[in-house]
């Protein structure tokens, strides 16, 4: 990691840059990483060009171990194939994940609860929704199979909630159907338990989960925000007893890679302070 390098000043980067770099730092070299469309894609390609050149990138649509030269606009993009080891389909992508090859998954969400349960399906009552969203996609699959998952989310009070409208993607406290009583994820997945959500990178801070209880805690707050502000923006009582400090800003080298190499067309990451 290049944490001690040439950090950019606040006026030199935007929020999307900060999230992108924070996300990139979650991956270690040689890991197998399952990545969705959007900012996570830029983050992982950034990691691939900095501290994790040997990470193995899996796209849900079926590209295994790819090294795109240009940023794909989605995981089905023709740009995904470039430099990849195998271009196949979703059966292979999900089987590889279920078989246990995946170390880390990058995902998004509309709502999250204190135990990392994420909703991408609907806002309001599922049977009478205020707004139907995209639906699950591969979110629950990747989150069920990967050893750890990182969520990147917009932070608003209405999104960090006591109970999500619909549990699309499994966190650390789950419903044991058909009865629906709450159980710990470890109990739910039994002998096949591998892990679960490891971090939420929001527009305000970086959150992690307690090993034992699976409860979310604040790890770092982003430059310019405060612990108090973050507490205000959560409907549940956030654990702020383990705050380690401020989120490290992007380095100038990272900003160069993001804006001049990976996303010069500003497909996902706007330039400068615009984001």
């Amino acid at each position, binding site marked *: 990691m290049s944490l001690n390098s040439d950090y950019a000043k606040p006026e030199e980067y935007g929020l999307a840059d900060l999230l992108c770099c924070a996300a990139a730092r979650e991956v270690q070299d040689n890991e197998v990483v399952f990545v969705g469309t959007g900012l996570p894609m830029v983050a992982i390609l950034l990691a691939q060009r900095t501290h994790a050149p040997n990470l193995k990138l899996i796209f849900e649509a079926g590209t295994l171990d790819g090294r795109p030269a240009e940023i794909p*606009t989605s995981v089905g993009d023709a740009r995904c194939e470039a430099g990849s080891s195998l271009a*196949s389909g*979703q059966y292979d992508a999900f089987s590889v994940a279920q078989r246990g090859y995946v170390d880390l998954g990058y995902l998004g969400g509309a709502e999250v609860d204190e135990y990392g349960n994420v909703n991408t399906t609907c806002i309001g009552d599922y049977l009478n929704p205020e707004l139907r969203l995209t639906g*699950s996609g*591969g979110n629950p699959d990747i989150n*069920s199979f990967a050893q750890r998952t990182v969520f990147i989310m917009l932070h608003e009070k209405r999104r960090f909630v006591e109970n999500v409208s619909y549990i*699309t993607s499994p966190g650390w406290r789950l419903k044991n159907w058909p009865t629906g009583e709450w*159980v710990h994820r470890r109990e739910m997945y039994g002998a096949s338990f591998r892990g679960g959500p490891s971090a939420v990178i929001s527009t305000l801070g970086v959150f992690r989960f307690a090993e034992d209880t699976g409860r979310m805690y604040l790890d770092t707050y982003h430059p310019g925000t405060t612990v108090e502000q973050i507490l205000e923006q959560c409907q549940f009582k956030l654990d702020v007893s383990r705050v380690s400090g401020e989120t490290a800003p992007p380095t100038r080298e990272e900003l160069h890679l993001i804006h001049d190499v990976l996303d010069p067309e500003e497909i996902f990451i706007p330039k400068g302070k615009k984001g």
Partner: protein
Amino acid sequence: MKNKKITIQEAAELVRDGSRLTFAGFTIWRKPFAVAYELIRQQRRNLHLIEVGGGSISDCLIGAGCVSVYESCWVGHELYGKYGANLSRKVKNREILMEDYSHGEMMFRFAAAAAGVPFAVSQSSLGTDIHNPEYDMLGRAGLRDGVKNPRSKYQFMDDPFYNGGKYVLLPAAKADVAVLSVQQVGEEGTVRIEGQCYCDPTVARAADITIAIAEEIVPESYLRQDSHVNTIPSFEVDYIVECPWNAHPSGMFGRYDVDGDFLRNFFQQTRSQEGFDAFAREWIYGLDHDSYLDKLGVTRLQRLRANTVLKYSTSRGKGK
């Protein structure tokens, strides 16, 4: 030899009112829009659209009122529209029945159907509301006949062999007709897909009738010279159609990119039913595939055309 070649119109006619239909491809890639448009022109109704994953094509067919049951995991336009506004509207208005699974679950369900078995086993989505028995929409509607709709949405089972814990059994996905959008097909039905094959080979094997819409029909003998790089065997494809640009506005590896402007406009314009109807009047009704392409124009299509070495367009942008 049976002549498998038909037209886009005839392909759409193979999908009947009430058919269980599936599209291969992925979100905004290799989706046979030319057939979806024709289904809308032919005013097909009460379709049960069951897909590994949806996308712009699903939302278009849904917006036109062709679909009464939608069974899948995701509808959106990727970068060009953050959800499927037509599906959302119709779910909210109870004009459509939506049955939710996860993407992996839908893929495994089609894989089970392709392998000729009644269910798949998985540990995906355990503990989520996908398995909430209250949210079994086909069940609530009394549609679980055990024929094409399984008797239950899922079953749970403990691993009886390795003490691995709880697993979910997922019913095979039954489709009457699968429509694929591919680069090449031979006159006997052999399909060669370049780039990611997505769910295409699985869906082709699973469905009762499989139709391949290809950019080009090529000599079968050419494809058979290197059969280990083909994707789908001849006898799994019942009908073939030659139709260049059939996937527009979705993209196709090695041929053309996604038309992002078109999809962004679709998402914005079709957030209301009136908007959808206006879109359909402009881009669907009164046109056929040729006049649709003419309306798009040469310059626009040329800009989308893939570089033959890179396999994607070099003039992509965010669109504007």
